[in-house]
């Protein structure tokens, strides 16, 4: 079974999807460190904020954004596989409707969050 996932593009997508979960974890750690620094006082907190502004951190966050977006996209793709069928008015909801609803909800939630942060920052 060595290298099984390289034999088929479908498996490669699966492995990339699974691997991008590590980026989600990485971002959670970044935020947790921020929380810890906040608890340590003003100096520690501003230090963390400054570190976030460094070019290296910005590049890192862009990479995180791409990886997490891919993870979210492929995660919603798995919805019809993993969920019990949804029946509305006696009819089963089509898999592509389930997937596109998930994507739409994710995009709206992201934009709403971006809007809120934008207003707070301004």
């Amino acid at each position, binding site marked *: 079974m060595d290298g*099984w996932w390289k034999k088929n593009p*479908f*498996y490669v997508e*699966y492995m990339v999807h*699974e691997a991008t979960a590590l980026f989600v974890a990485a971002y959670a750690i970044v935020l947790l460190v921020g929380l810890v620094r906040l608890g340590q006082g003003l100096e520690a907190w501003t230090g963390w904020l400054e570190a976030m502004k460094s070019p290296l951190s910005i590049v890192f966050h862009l990479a995180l954004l791409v990886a997490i977006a891919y993870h979210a996209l492929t995660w919603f793709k*798995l919805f*019809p*596989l*993993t969920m019990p069928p949804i029946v509305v008015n006696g009819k089963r909801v089509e898999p592509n409707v389930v997937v596109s609803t998930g994507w739409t909800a994710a995009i709206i939630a992201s934009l709403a969050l971006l809007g809120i942060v934008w207003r707070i920052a301004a």
Partner: protein
Amino acid sequence: MSEQKVIEIEVLRYLPESDQAPRSEVYKVPFTDDMSVLQGAQYIKDHFDGSLTFRWSCRMAICGSCGMMINGIPKLSCETFIRDYYPNRITIEALANFPIEKDLVVDLSGFIEKLEAIQPYIIPKEPRTVEQGEYIQTPAQFAEYIQFTSCINCTLCYAACPQVGLNPEFIGPAAIALAHRYNMDSRDGGQAQRMELLASEDGVYNCSAVGYCSEVCPKHVDPGNAVNINKINAAKDYFLRFLSPKGGAK
């Protein structure tokens, strides 16, 4: 008349009497646009080597016998056409994740055991006598499981599942889909018995939701969905026992 087209078909051969390990052999097969890969294999058997062994029966994607790896993808060879690969070479191999018996024939005994283990028949909720009449089922109750009755046991989903490859004991997509078919049947009362197996170490939690089983299924059974729904069911059983008398013990 146009010129006769010829395609190269590379076949993974294995003759247990003479071969230490499987080996490849290439045949040049003349074909017409209406020829399936199965017919290509039949041409090889009829004209080049009568010892080439493969299973087939209906030639119309109903019997589920002629599954093989075609260029690395599990497919029914009767509904896969040579013209779609021409002018490239076609490689045909025995289904992945099964022991090879001879050439393209795999040993299905492990799969048959799994099928038997999930008790693929109605275990009546309440036994009825002939005098009491038939079991009544509404169209809505029928719709709950009809999709999972379409399985033809072609085992393409086992060849597609990397988890079956890693753990051959995993009950696997088709057998779990069939267990789900009976669990979902309003006439059936055997769910508790089947869930014991589905929730076991060889059960649904071997699945990591790759989803390729559902992708290759020629009958759109969506076995991956059956497996994943039963992860939820198994988890429910696990947690609900804390609420039931005697902790769910029998």
